[in-house]
């Protein structure tokens, strides 16, 4: 039936040149589903790790060591899998390995990498690296780190001390065996997108009783002379002077700005046999010149004849608009010094139960088993902590009566009346356990005060022009008592660099809380008629994880880089100063 899509309207719509397709990197639904079902959430970035070491120990007698690096990944349950080996560098104590390891960066999980440097014995020097048995080599040292530690460094390089574990080492012998430097580069960083508005004048009428229905197909020319279509515009009916909707092209899609492109103008026919009205051959650079010179380029029709002359047509192609935009990635912002600051607020209302009794949600088990609150703090905090430079986290409690005081809906977890911050995740845990026995649980459950405090901190940072984005984790066991108060606070805070993650623990019915998450309902409205300008809340009920699964909290965390990027892009804030 021809070379068009499944139906006429499908055949008339634009393919692949729209802004939506560049945002998702041109992945289609099938690919998206494939990755999602394996727990990989787009947008994800590919990172290339390169390695070098200094001051390695000298193990060989007559020459220097011949080092090789092996990289392993440690899973959540402790299993260790080898994933990569570099080549062997001969005779060097300061090797720079050439082979690089490509790993996919996942924001929402801790990717623990283990590094092990080996000295490859001379007898194995002609063996393929992957055939080498590690037990037969000598260890020169080990190190480990999380991938997030590397990408949050300004220059994306992390230097680790190599540590040796040996049987015969004496107690005075130094354990350090040199240093390993790991450097990360994002593959396909900063995508440059070109936005063009194309129009034509004086096209020929190809239809008998009406004007043409033109559309454009943009293709790239590869070396062998074949043209590969990159995108097509929508079909405009009955128009000899058409202006199509803007076309978005990733420069990577076409190769480079100088790559030759063929733009063909066809007349749409519902039987699928579209007539070629005319074409031009231009690169993106040429199109940019057409735009700035406000000139039109005549279309031509290739003629078959022995002189191979092209028939120049009256119709012309114009470039109405031409703009280049760089789309920075999340890792670009991290490299530019941007941070994610973690804040936590814990529900101390009486509905949790007496903390001294084992059935309370706040029960601290002497055997060390974490309760739901502790688990939620770990799951979110251990990932976000890497993105916070000073590791000082504001921590609050709400819904309780501190010693001899009235009920507070926002008290500092550390018990101080001056500052609210604690040091590290461990600091949060210590402040939490000590607060449990220093306050009396009360009620009602109100989030407004805590949200306002967090918003104030975000607003002060904004006034100081700091490059911080704040993430507030609220852990609660119950439904909010005053939903309107919460909505008012959220609407006021919706324009700030702030995301709020509400985790519900215990068995309560959290149906009402889902109203706060605009994904599941409408935009939030305050009592004064103001509407939230962004959806800053995500609500998720906490469930225990079966081994191997991604926890639902992590799935929600995966959305954070997108929320961060949307905030930055809408305000045109760029990563570099």
């Amino acid at each position, binding site marked *: 039936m021809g070379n068009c899509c499944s139906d006429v309207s499908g055949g008339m719509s634009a393919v692949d040149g729209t802004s939506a397709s560049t945002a998702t990197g041109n992945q289609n639904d099938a690919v998206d589903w494939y990755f999602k079902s394996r727990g990989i959430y787009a947008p994800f970035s590919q990172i290339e790790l390169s390695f070098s070491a200094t001051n390695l120990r000298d193990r060989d007698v007559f020459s220097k060591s011949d080092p090789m690096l092996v990289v392993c990944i440690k899973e959540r349950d402790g299993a260790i899998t080898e994933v990569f080996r570099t080549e062997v560098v001969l005779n060097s104590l300061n090797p720079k390995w050439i082979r690089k390891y490509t790993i996919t960066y996942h924001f929402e999980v801790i990717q623990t990498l283990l590094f092990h440097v080996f000295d490859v014995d001379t007898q194995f020097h002609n063996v393929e690296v992957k055939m080498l048995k590690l037990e037969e080599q000598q260890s020169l040292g080990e190190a480990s780190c999380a991938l997030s530690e590397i990408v949050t460094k300004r220059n994306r390089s992390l230097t680790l001390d190599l540590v040796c574990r040996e049987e015969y080492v004496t107690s005075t012998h130094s354990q350090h065996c040199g240093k390993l430097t790991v450097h990360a580069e994002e593959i396909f960083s900063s995508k440059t997108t070109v936005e063009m508005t194309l129009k034509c004048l004086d096209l020929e009428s190809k239809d008998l009783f009406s004007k043409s229905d033109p559309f454009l197909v943009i293709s790239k020319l590869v070396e062998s002379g074949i043209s590969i279509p990159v995108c097509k515009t929508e079909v405009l009916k009955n128009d000899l002077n058409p202006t199509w909707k803007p076309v978005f092209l990733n420069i990577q899609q076409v190769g480079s700005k100088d790559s030759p492109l063929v733009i063909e103008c066809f007349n749409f026919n519902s039987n699928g046999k579209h007539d070629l009205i005319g074409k031009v051959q231009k690169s993106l650079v040429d199109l940019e010149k057409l735009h700035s010179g406000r000139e039109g380029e005549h279309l031509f029709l290739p003629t078959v004849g022995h002189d191979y002359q092209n028939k120049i047509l009256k119709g012309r192609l114009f470039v109405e608009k031409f703009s280049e935009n760089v789309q920075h990635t999340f890792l670009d912002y991290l490299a530019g010094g941007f941070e994610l600051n973690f804040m936590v607020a814990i529900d101390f209302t009486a509905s949790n139960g007496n903390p001294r009794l084992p059935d309370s949600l706040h029960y601290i088990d002497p055997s060390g088993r974490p309760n739901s609150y502790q688990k939620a703090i770990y799951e979110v905090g251990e990932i976000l902590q890497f993105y916070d430079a000073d590791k000082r986290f504001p921590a609050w409690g709400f819904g309780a009566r501190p010693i001899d005081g009235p009920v507070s809906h926002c008290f500092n977890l550390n018990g101080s009346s001056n500052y*609210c911050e604690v040091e590290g995740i461990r600091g949060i845990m210590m402040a939490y356990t000590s607060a449990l026995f220093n306050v009396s649980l009360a009620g009602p459950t109100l989030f407004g005060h805590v949200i306002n405090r967090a918003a104030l901190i975000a607003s002060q940072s904004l006034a100081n022009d700091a490059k911080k984005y704040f993430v507030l984790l609220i852990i609660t066991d119950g439904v909010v008592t005053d939903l309107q108060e919460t909505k008012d606070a959220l609407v006021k805070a919706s324009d700030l660099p702030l995301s709020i993650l509400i985790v519900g623990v215990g068995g309560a019915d959290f149906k009402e809380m889902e109203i706060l998450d605009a994904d599941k309902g409408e*935009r939030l409205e305050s009592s004064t*008629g103001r509407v939230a300008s962004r959806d800053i809340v995500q609500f998720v009920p906490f469930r225990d994880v079966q081994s191997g699964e991604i926890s639902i909290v992590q799935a929600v965390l995966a959305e954070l880089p997108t929320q961060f990027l949307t905030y930055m892009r809408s305000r045109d804030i760029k990563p570099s100063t």
Partner: protein
Amino acid sequence: METKSRTLEITVLSGEDLRIDNKSVKKNAYVIVSIDTFSYKATKIDAEGGSSPSWNDKLVMDMPMQTRFITLQVKCKVSGGDKTVGYARIPVTDFIGGYSPETCLQFLSYRLRDPKGLKNGIINVSVRVKEPIQACSSQAAAAGLGLGIPIDGRKDFGVVTGIPIWSGYTYPSNSLFR
């Protein structure tokens, strides 16, 4: 020392779910932004947008110091004339003395109410004030402190309160639009 009026850049971005006489608006919606009855500007007409038009029209207006509200009026050009779709009032305190510094670009959204007072869609704008207020600290206004309260024992944020420009100014209660 203080300027008599400030420059307000308001970009009317888009509207959502606009209806007239219980039917979705088809086309030709536009917005009138007024500082007071005499000082107002209109955006371009969106001929195709339908019930969710987008204007992206930046209007620059002078805003005198005593201004308390900016009024947005969404209208629609129909064959009989211009019909009002709805109103929204933006209290100036929503973008001055709020969480964001006023010279920062702020995105605000408001519920529109039609002449009968019923809900009729949402309007999205972005605002920026050109000149910063010298003597007022945004944190103080956000904390809701009134005039004349001395801050000696510092509160947790360690912020100094300036003197608000409008004396006797309290947060306006928007009771008309409850």
